[in-house]
């Protein structure tokens, strides 16, 4: 039944040979990898204005038109980071972004910091995007506001299912909404400018000067800048997911990256201009984009269309993470810093385990933060800019070692990129520290520690299993212990016969909880298996597993050089729900025995027909 449900939800398994067919064209890859970056248009301007209006609320004279130069500076920074990543992709067409670049050039610690930052970034992308998408819906339908966490969790589950169906399938679902969103935003910007220049909108009041320069004022502007830098998030997705592209991989990825950056810059600057020209400020119950849409097109079908498209793109932005996180996690897992399961391809040639892990953690975050976009965004930025900085710094070392032509200017460019993003990282870290960035710093440290512990574990396992110091043991002898439920039956006798086939020393053991007639039991037992001793242990506290474990320990010490095999008779029910009608003692026993050294556990199943 479960298999059928799985097939309905995610489709039939794909052959490994079909892996090259799963690679995407530039158009399809743009839909998968750019949705995160482009969707930040929906909230980046709002984040700048939120920071600036906080100053106004505190009694400072902050001209809101400062959002325009701040947006311009962010667009320039986008260009720098984009060109830097373009170079990274040519140098490392295998993908992995900051993790790979740092590992090759800066060492393991930097790589782990980069990997942790990127993985955290992906998790936060899901949480932020979905929360923002649902916020767009609750702006249009305020009665849904109280159900936002549930709606967010549902959206994550739907995304997970779409992605579990495969890369091509998710791209097919995504392509439409991403391109419709791009058209919708240009429609909004175009319509907004037309209305403004036709004089249908009152021009904003002329700037009235600003607060005298002070540390608090500079801090406020830096806060606005760093908040707006959320627009850059997702730029790294293309470099991380290079392997998603059809060959020539690096060329196709670069073109997609530059197209994405161009779209982002124009859309972000356009909405920032509109917000200022229409004099809008952020409101908790309505997003900035919704206010602009309402002002330009009225509360009609176009407005609802823009809102719906925005909601869809914001939710689908999380899809970039579903494409990036599992791939990066698989690379880190191949290096043994994450559990190996994350490196396994699932039925549909995607890293299903990574996807499910991502969905679970993101839902946890959404619940913890009440699906509040503004509480989640401060967490978002530190990881992103740490990854940017490490990636650029790693590239500087790469070019220094390289003999490629033009390495001088490339090194200079990446150096400038590293310096700029490091500065932003410092600013973001400082201004957002109290808002929650400290949590990311703690999480990064914790993740790096976990990475190392996982690697240590795998190293210890491989050393312990190594044949370097292997000594062949002398002939094995073992005692078979068969836990039996009481009087003999088909299931019990099958286990006894099996035990007899593997050992000359078989002992049956029964735990008497107080209700069994010992003499009758002995008589029945002797009638069916006269040559197997039955040990009946009393359990005054009605425990089964504990006295059994103690007896197994005793049997283990009974003879020198002895291995104990516990042969467990069990029946398998004909229907899955019948399972719940029986005691789960066998399962508890198996778990308890798993951790006992020198004890082998064998299960002898008896399949019930009904």
């Amino acid at each position: 039944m479960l298999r059928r449900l799985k097939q309905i939800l995610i489709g039939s398994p794909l052959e490994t040979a079909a892996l090259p067919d799963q690679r995407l064209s530039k158009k399809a890859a743009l839909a998968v990898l750019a949705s995160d970056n482009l969707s930040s248009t929906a909230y980046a301007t709002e984040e700048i204005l939120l920071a600036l209006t906080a100053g106004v609320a505190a009694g400072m004279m902050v001209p809101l038109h400062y959002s325009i130069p701040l947006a311009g500076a962010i667009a320039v920074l986008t260009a720098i980071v984009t060109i830097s990543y373009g170079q990274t992709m040519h140098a490392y067409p295998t993908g992995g972004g900051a993790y790979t670049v740092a590992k090759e050039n800066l060492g393991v610690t930097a790589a782990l910091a980069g990997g942790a930052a990127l993985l955290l970034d992906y998790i936060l992308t899901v949480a932020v995007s979905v929360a923002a998408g649902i916020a767009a819906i609750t702006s249009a339908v305020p009665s849904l506001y109280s159900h936002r966490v549930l709606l967010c969790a549902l959206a994550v589950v739907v995304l997970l299912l779409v992605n579990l169906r495969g890369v091509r399938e998710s791209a097919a679902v995504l392509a439409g909404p991403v391109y419709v969103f791009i058209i919708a935003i240009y429609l909004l910007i175009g319509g907004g400018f037309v209305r403004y220049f036709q004089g249908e909108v009152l021009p904003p009041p002329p700037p009235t000067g600003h607060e005298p320069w002070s540390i608090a004022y500079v801090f406020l502007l830096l806060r606005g800048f760093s908040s707006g830098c959320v627009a850059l998030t997702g730029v790294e997705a293309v470099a991380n997911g290079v392997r998603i592209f059809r060959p020539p991989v690096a060329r196709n990825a670069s073109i997609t990256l530059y197209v994405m950056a161009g779209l982002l810059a124009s859309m972000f600057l356009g909405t920032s201009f509109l917000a200022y020209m229409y004099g809008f400020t952020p409101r908790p119950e309505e997003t900035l984009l919704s206010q602009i849409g309402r002002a330009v097109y009225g509360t009609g079908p176009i407005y609802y269309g823009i809102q719906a498209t925005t909601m869809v793109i914001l939710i689908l932005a999380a899809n970039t993470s579903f494409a990036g996180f599992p791939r990066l996690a698989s690379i880190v897992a191949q290096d043994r810093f994450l559990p190996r399961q994350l490196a396994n391809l699932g039925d549909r040639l995607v890293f299903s385990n990574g996807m499910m892990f991502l969905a679970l953690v993101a839902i946890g975050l959404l619940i913890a933060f009440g699906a509040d976009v503004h509480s989640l965004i401060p967490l978002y930025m530190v990881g992103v800019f740490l990854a940017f900085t490490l990636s650029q710094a790693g590239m500087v070392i790469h070019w220094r070692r390289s003999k490629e032509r033009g390495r001088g200017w490339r090194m200079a460019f990446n150096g400038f990129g590293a310096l700029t993003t490091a500065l932003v990282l410092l600013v973001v870290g400082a201004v957002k520290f109290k808002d929650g960035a400290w949590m990311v710093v703690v999480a990064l440290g914790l993740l790096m520690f976990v990475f190392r512990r996982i690697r240590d574990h795998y190293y210890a396992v491989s050393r312990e299993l190594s044949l370097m110091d292997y000594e062949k043991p002398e002939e094995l002898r073992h005692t078979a212990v068969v836990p039996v439920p009481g009087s003999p039956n088909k299931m019990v006798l099958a286990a006894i016969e099996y035990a007899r086939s593997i050992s000359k020393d078989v002992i049956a053991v029964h735990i008497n909880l107080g209700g069994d007639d010992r003499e009758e039991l002995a008589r029945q037992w002797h009638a069916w298996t006269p040559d197997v001793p039955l040990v009946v242990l009393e359990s005054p506290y009605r425990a089964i597993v504990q006295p059994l474990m103690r007896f197994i320990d005793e049997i283990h010490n009974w003879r020198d050089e002895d291995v104990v095999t516990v042969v467990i008779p069990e029946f398998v029910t004909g229907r899955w729900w019948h399972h719940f009608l029986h005691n789960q003692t066998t399962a508890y026993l198996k778990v308890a025995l798993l951790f006992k050294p020198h004890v082998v556990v064998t299960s002898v199943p008896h399949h019930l027909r009904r």
Partner: protein
Amino acid sequence: MELTPERKRSIRQRLEPLLAALNPEFRFVEVILDSERRNLGVVVQKGDQPAVLRFDFVRYVSMPEAELRSNLEEQLRSRKMLGNSSG
């Protein structure tokens, strides 16, 4: 390997009084012998704690009572199934 009922009975008759002398709470459960006929196991229980006391079968047969008693005591004490006073 299952011992004959007579052999089991004789082992039980020999050990049960010794166990009772050490602590009346001890219950004689079963006696087992391995297929090599070398290792004798005497299963006893006190409360919910079982113990399999090990003896060399050949040595056991000719073991003087005093040595058997002290061997039993030592094995039970090593499992912390006896108090400091040996009863």
